[in-house]
C-alpha cells in the first residue's frame, strides 16, 4: 500500500492567529467576558441592597473610585463592540422573507439598533436621567 495521507495538524491553542478573520472572531467572543464581569458586578450590587442601606452606600462609594470608573468605561466600550458585531450578524440568523424577496439586511440589523435605543432610553427615563 503506497498511500500515506498527511494531515497537517491545526495548533490547538493560538489557532486564531492564523488568519485575521479568526482574530476578529476572537475579539467579538472575548468581549463577552467583560459583559459577564459587569453582570457579576450588578449582582453584587443587588446583594448589597439586600444587606441594608449602609452596605449599599459603601458599594456606591466604591463605584466612584478611579479604578471603577476606568472599568466601567472599558466595559461600556467592549459591550458596545459586542452588541454591534452581534447586531450586524442578526440578518444572517433571522432572515425574513416577504413574498419573493428577503427583507434587506440593513432593515433587520436596524430594527435591533432601534430596539436597543428605545430600551436604553426607557432605562434612562426610569432612572430619572431626564
Amino acid at each position, binding site marked *: 500500500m503506497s498511500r500515506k495521507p498527511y494531515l*497537517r495538524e*491545526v495548533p490547538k491553542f493560538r489557532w486564531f492567529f*492564523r488568519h485575521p478573520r479568526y482574530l476578529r472572531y476572537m475579539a467579538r*467572543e472575548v468581549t463577552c467576558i467583560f459583559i459577564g464581569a459587569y453582570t457579576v458586578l450588578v449582582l453584587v450590587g443587588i446583594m448589597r441592597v439586600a444587606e441594608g442601606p449602609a452596605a449599599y452606600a459603601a458599594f456606591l462609594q466604591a463605584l466612584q473610585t478611579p479604578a471603577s470608573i476606568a472599568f466601567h468605561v472599558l466595559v461600556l466600550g467592549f459591550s458596545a463592540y459586542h452588541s454591534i458585531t452581534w447586531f450586524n450578524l442578526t440578518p444572517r440568523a433571522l432572515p425574513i*422573507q416577504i413574498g419573493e424577496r428577503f427583507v434587506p439586511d440593513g432593515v433587520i440589523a436596524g430594527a435591533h439598533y432601534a430596539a436597543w435605543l428605545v430600551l436604553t432610553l426607557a432605562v434612562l427615563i426610569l432612572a430619572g436621567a431626564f
Partner: protein
Amino acid sequence: MSERQVELEVLRYNPETDSEPRFQRYSVSCREEWVVLDALNHVKETVDPTLSYRWSCHMAVCGSCGMMINGEPKLACKSFLRDHPGVIRVEPLAHFPIERDLVTVIDDFMAKLARVKPYLIPKQAKSVEEGEYLQTPAELKRYKQYTLCINCMLCYAACPEYGLIPKFIGPAAISMAHRYNQDSRDGGRAARQEEIAAGEGVWDCSFTGACSEVCPEHVDPASALQQVKIKSTVDWYKEHLMPWLKK
C-alpha cells in the same frame, strides 16, 4: 497581451518519496488575464508533469479545484493572477489530509454529506403521472440559495471549528440538510434533525462566519447553520415547556 513572470510556491507531497510536504518554487511566464489554475496547467505542461491536482470545468461549477491560495481557500479557476501581484503560494485545502501534492482526501466530507439525508423526503407522495408538485417562486426562493453549493469544500478549509473538531458535520453538509428542510415539498426535517441538531451538528458551530466569507457561490452556510440552531432551540422549548403541543 501582457505577459508576466509568475512565481508559484506549491506545496508538494508524494507519499512514496516524501516524509512530509515541502514547498517547490516554479517560475513561469503567464498571461495577465490567467487564473491560478491556468498557471498550474502551464507548469504541468511545460515544467513538471509530476505535479498533481484536480480540475475540470474552469468555470466554477464542478468544485474540483479548491486550494489554499496565499492562505485563503479559493477555487483555482476563479483566482486571477492580477489579484496576486507577488509570489503566489498554493497549498492543498486546509483541514483535509493530503493524498498527494494539491489532492486531498475528501472521504470525510462525502460521508457527512450522505449522513444528513440530502434528498427530498416527500411530505406527500405523488406519482409521476399526477404531474409536478406545485411550488411558487416565493417557495423556491426560500431554499434556492442553498442549492447552489458545488461541494468544493472551501468552507471546511475556512472553518476553524472543523479544523479543531474533525467530527463536526460542517457547513456545506448542514446547509444541504437545511436546503431540503426549507423545501415546500419536503417532510423529512425530523429525520435530518437527528444528525444536524445533535452534538456533531450545529452546536459545534460558533458562528465565526468564515464559511460564508469564502463561499464562491454565495451560499451563506453560516446563515443556514444559525437558522437551524434557532429552529432547534424553538423545538426544544416546545418539547420541554409546551409538551401539549406535541402531536
